[in-house]
């Protein structure tokens, strides 16, 4: 059903003008409601460009990308209302004296939560923080939180607006194993129970490998798109990363590529 397709890329490509660089080409995939996608690739492989294209912040130089049936660039104001974006925690200002409650509340009020029958703002903020296990630290200064706690606050900020699509850039960077696993379970629950489409850019797919439905392998072009079993093969990984990547098979039969980042975990 076309109505179920949340993200649809057709021959998507993007060239930067200055300096002239082809960041992406030939990316075609579609994600249905509630799908869970991991985007992988080496540094500079176009992952961030894809994220910006989905958000409607870049106009594709080739092909198209549609979110909820609408061209992302032309209808960026509309499609951004259904996307929850989670940046890397170290890309945000650590010095602004704001606590998690303020940060999530600012996002909620920016989107009009609590106005015109969109529910109570305070309750929504509290729910979002509770969902990521940050309710107890809601009043602590953001800069004093650990990397993992900061990341969870940014996830809460994305969730407070009830997104249809959760778009995450390196959601596990700096997150300890316990909280990483909690975050992965939360994402899987959102995808399966709440039918939120989740798209996560990751260097290390292993924490997600048991939960994702699809993997998109990039190297400034689409190397592969499919199920983890179809895409996480030594051949395709070598094509994407330009080097041999060993792959282990766990007891559940799930493939686990051992990239440098994976080895750290």
């Amino acid at each position, binding site marked *: 059903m076309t109505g179920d397709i949340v993200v649809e890329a057709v021959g998507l490509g993007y060239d930067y003008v200055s300096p002239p660089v082809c960041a992406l080409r030939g990316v075609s995939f579609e994600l249905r409601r509630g799908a869970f996608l991991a985007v992988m690739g080496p540094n500079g492989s176009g992952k961030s460009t894809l994220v910006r294209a989905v958000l409607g912040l870049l106009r594709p130089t080739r092909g198209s990308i549609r979110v909820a049936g609408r061209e992302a660039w032309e209808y*960026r104001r509309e499609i*951004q209302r259904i*996307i929850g*974006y989670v940046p890397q925690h170290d890309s945000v200002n650590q010095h*602004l004296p704001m606590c998690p409650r303020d*940060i999530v509340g600012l*996002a909620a009020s920016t989107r009009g939560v609590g106005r015109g029958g969109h529910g109570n703002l305070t309750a929504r903020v509290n729910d979002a923080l509770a969902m990521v296990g940050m309710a107890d630290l809601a009043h602590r200064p953001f800069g004093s939180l650990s990397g993992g706690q900061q990341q969870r606050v940014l996830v809460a900020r994305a969730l407070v607006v009830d997104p249809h699509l959760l778009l995450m850039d390196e959601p596990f960077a700096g997150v300890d194993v316990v909280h990483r696993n909690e975050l992965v379970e939360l994402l899987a629950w959102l995808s399966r129970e709440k039918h939120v489409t989740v798209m996560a850019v990751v260097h290390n797919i292993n924490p997600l490998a048991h939960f994702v439905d699809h993997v998109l392998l990039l190297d400034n072009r689409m190397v592969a798109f499919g199920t983890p079993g179809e895409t996480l093969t030594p051949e395709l990984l070598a094509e994407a990363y330009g080097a041999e990547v060993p792959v282990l098979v766990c007891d559940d039969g799930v493939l686990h590529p051992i990239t440098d980042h994976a080895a750290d975990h």
Partner: protein
Amino acid sequence: MPPTTDSFLDYIASPYVLRALAGVVLIAANAGVSGAFAAFRRSTFLVSGASHAALAGAALVIVLETHGLIIGVNPLVGAALAAVGLGLLAAWASNRGSDELVETAIGVGFAFSMALAALLMSMIPEAATRVWSVLLGDVLLLTNGDLWLMGGVTLAVCGIVWWFRRPLLFITFDIEGAKSFGIRAGLHNTLLFGLIALSCAVVLKSVGAIVVYAMLVAPAATALLLCASVRRAMVTATGIALVSGLVAIGLSYYVRLSVGALAALLACLTYFAALCWRATSRRRGGVA
């Protein structure tokens, strides 16, 4: 320099001190709003650059007036235009996403402004003292016209920041996230840089280009060391600038020293005291 008066109360009630008190209130408001946002987003070099650009703008107005090319234009107008010009240049660099480019743009603008101001002063030796007065500033020499201009611009700066407080805070925290929330980050970033630069021009005649940084940034930097919320930090920055200015005016009755320099000194000392307190608290494990 204030004339000798019989009593402290007579001194405080004199028109030039009353105007100075009003000036200090306006400086404090600018420190609490623009100074705080400059500190929040780590763009304090903009304050330094814009205040020196403002000096060049004021000097240009004075030169043009001396040569009879313009009449009745307050040098603060030239200061505001030049400062905002530098603010917009810095915003353009910032919107290109490069902090290094921002620093370079402000630095080059700073050097250009100082060179231009020196050149203009050499063109009008007879009016050079007027330019020097802008460089050093004196809150006791504010005129009613200066106060009206300062008051109007300060009100506008505070009103605009209040109206756009959500997007301005959002872009200060996370510019990419702000874009994903549909906020026109480039536009708001430009607005914020312009407002910070405008504040620098507003306080120029009161404290002088050299110490604008101390009066706008030091109180906000102190507040950042002490406060855990944006609102509290802005109120504290306003309070520190206000108290520094008021104490400096009070001291000026007893000692014949520049009020602007005294106020700046007090604001900076407050910052150093807060820094020491913070360091000792950390050592004792009192501050996270």
